[in-house]
């Protein structure tokens, strides 16, 4: 049962899916670190990304241009994020500071309900799949579904670009500055509300990207974002809110635990192992994997 090949295959598929969960966690944590709020509707942006991907592949571009469809879907979710931030989240700053958390929570919860109902109303509870013409690939001796490998490669590329933009561009500097001090960044002449808008757009676009990439793997239906979002939040608890390396490492760790649990214990409980990992981390290291500063109130 514990053959080397099975262990290696389980490990590879764990890392591959973990990176996609990390995308989701990164979106959550990125929005939080700039705007100091949690966007509870992340899963719905994931869902919209996957529907866009399905529609583009099935009706417009065809399965061979799937990579173009992914770029368009991600861009579409980014634009939607800008609109949502402008219409719903920006007014947060007209509220007194002690009400902002409540406002952000309730509005994004309502947004979750709204988008999900719209999706069910328009597309019904049916499950779609954009399909994938990618052949099964061999990683060493192990066969892997082409769509999963493609998702992994795309996610890695997106993480690389995200990191490079944050690290080396002027706008990335502005974003990092805003995450340190919202007042400080304003004294430097940067419009913090426009930084917010872009940050929100990027954060939900990461979720949309994960949705588009995972559409052929996990199917497309109105609540398909839920499971991946929960994993995103579990990663955030493990890796710490606001930590980018934390999101990546905790994401891979979660992917591995889940993959090994499914292979060696029982695959029916695949989506439960992550929560057990969260409990274990909270018991063993209450400050999170990286000893996040200020986590304890």
């Amino acid at each position, binding site marked *: 049962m514990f053959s080397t090949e099975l262990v290696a295959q389980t490990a590879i598929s764990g890392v591959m899916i973990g990176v996609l969960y990390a995308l989701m966690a990164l979106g959550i944590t990125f929005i939080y670190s700039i705007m100091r709020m949690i966007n509870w509707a992340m899963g719905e942006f994931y869902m919209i990304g996957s529907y866009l991907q399905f529609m583009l592949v099935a009706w417009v571009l065809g399965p061979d241009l799937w990579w173009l469809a992914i770029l368009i879907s991600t861009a579409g979710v980014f634009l939607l994020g800008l609109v949502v931030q402008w219409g*719903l989240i920006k007014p947060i700053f007209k509220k007194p500071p002690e009400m902002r958390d409540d406002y952000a929570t309730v509005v994004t919860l309502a947004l979750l309900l709204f988008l999900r109902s719209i999706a069910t*109303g328009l597309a019904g509870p049916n499950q779609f799949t954009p399909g994938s013409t990618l052949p099964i690939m061999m990683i060493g001796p192990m066969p892997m579904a082409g769509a999963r490998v493609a998702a992994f490669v795309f996610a890695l590329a997106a993480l690389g670009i995200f990191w490079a933009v944050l690290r080396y561009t002027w706008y990335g500097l502005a974003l990092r500055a805003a995450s340190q001090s919202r007042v400080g960044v304003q004294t430097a002449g940067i419009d913090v509300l426009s930084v917010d808008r872009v940050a929100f757009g990027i954060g939900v676009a990461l979720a949309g990207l994960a949705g588009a990439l995972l559409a052929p793997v996990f199917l497309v239906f109105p609540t398909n974002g839920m*499971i991946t979002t929960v994993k995103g939040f579990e990663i955030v608890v493990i890796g710490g809110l606001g930590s980018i390396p934390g999101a990546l490492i905790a994401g891979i760790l979660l992917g591995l635990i889940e993959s090994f649990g499914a292979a060696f214990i029982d695959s029916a409980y695949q989506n439960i192992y992550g929560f057990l990992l969260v409990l274990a981390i909270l018991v063993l290291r209450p400050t999170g994997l990286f000893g996040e500063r200020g986590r304890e109130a």
Partner: protein
Amino acid sequence: MSAFASTGFGRSAITILVAAAVLLLLPLVASSFVLHVATIGFYYVILAASWNLLAGYTGQFSLAHHAFAAVGAYTSGLLGYHWGISFWIGIPAGVLLSAAMGFVLGRLVLKMRAIYLAIATWAFAETVHVYLTADYQFTRGELGLSVKPLFGSVDPLKYYFLFLGLTVVLLIGMRALIDSPLGYFMRAIKDDELRAKSLGIDTTKVKVAIFSLSSAIAGLAGGFYAHYTVLLSPQMIDFSEMAKIVIMVVIGGFGTFLGPIIGAAPVQVVMTYLQSWGEWNLAVFALIVIVLMRFSMEGIAAVFTPLWRRMWRDG
């Protein structure tokens, strides 16, 4: 009487009892369908009020309140289904299990910034949801778990009185808690946790206690709910249930005692009558909430506050 009526607690208790006395007469005029809607409405009043205790008064956002109700419901349901154990043991067991889960989760997460409670409870609720669906051989999953009715039949009349009584007792209890020293600690934590701590309040202990208590109340409501609806499904932990509770509290008035009581009823009634619209009714509700939040965050209770003051003649 007058001395009793001059305390906040006394006034609230009198008002609740008068309202309950009026509601006792409802079965004289209402059809059994209306009684059914009202009974389910009481269930939501209990959930909304106990969630408000935690979120509105203590400032700790739990997103697993519906999951604790489901824990209470499924505990009693499963004990009865597999081992034929009566609700006399089943419901208290469900309450204890909900409270214990709340306590453990609270101990692990409530030391941290408030936002971690919301995140961890969200993950907890979905994990319970996944478990109930996945372990269908034990929980019957989507097939539905059948539960014995409490009074031998499902005629809503008796359940109406039961839930009315339960709601009155719990509301008066919660009011007493809010007016007790612990209630002041709760509000102090919500206003400024660091300052509350510096004044010598063991804030973590208070938060864990309130979280366990509100989870236990949810478990209690869930237990009775199970023995009324007779069929449980994981739909009970669908996230839209949690959103419904939040919306009820927010429409009524967040962090006010009256809020969840007057918020739950209209939401439940309108949702029942909009059910023919299918999924769209939730979209309509979500829009209402967004608009409400955009313009005012005080909810319906804000309209009633001046009336309340005038009623007891203080300015």
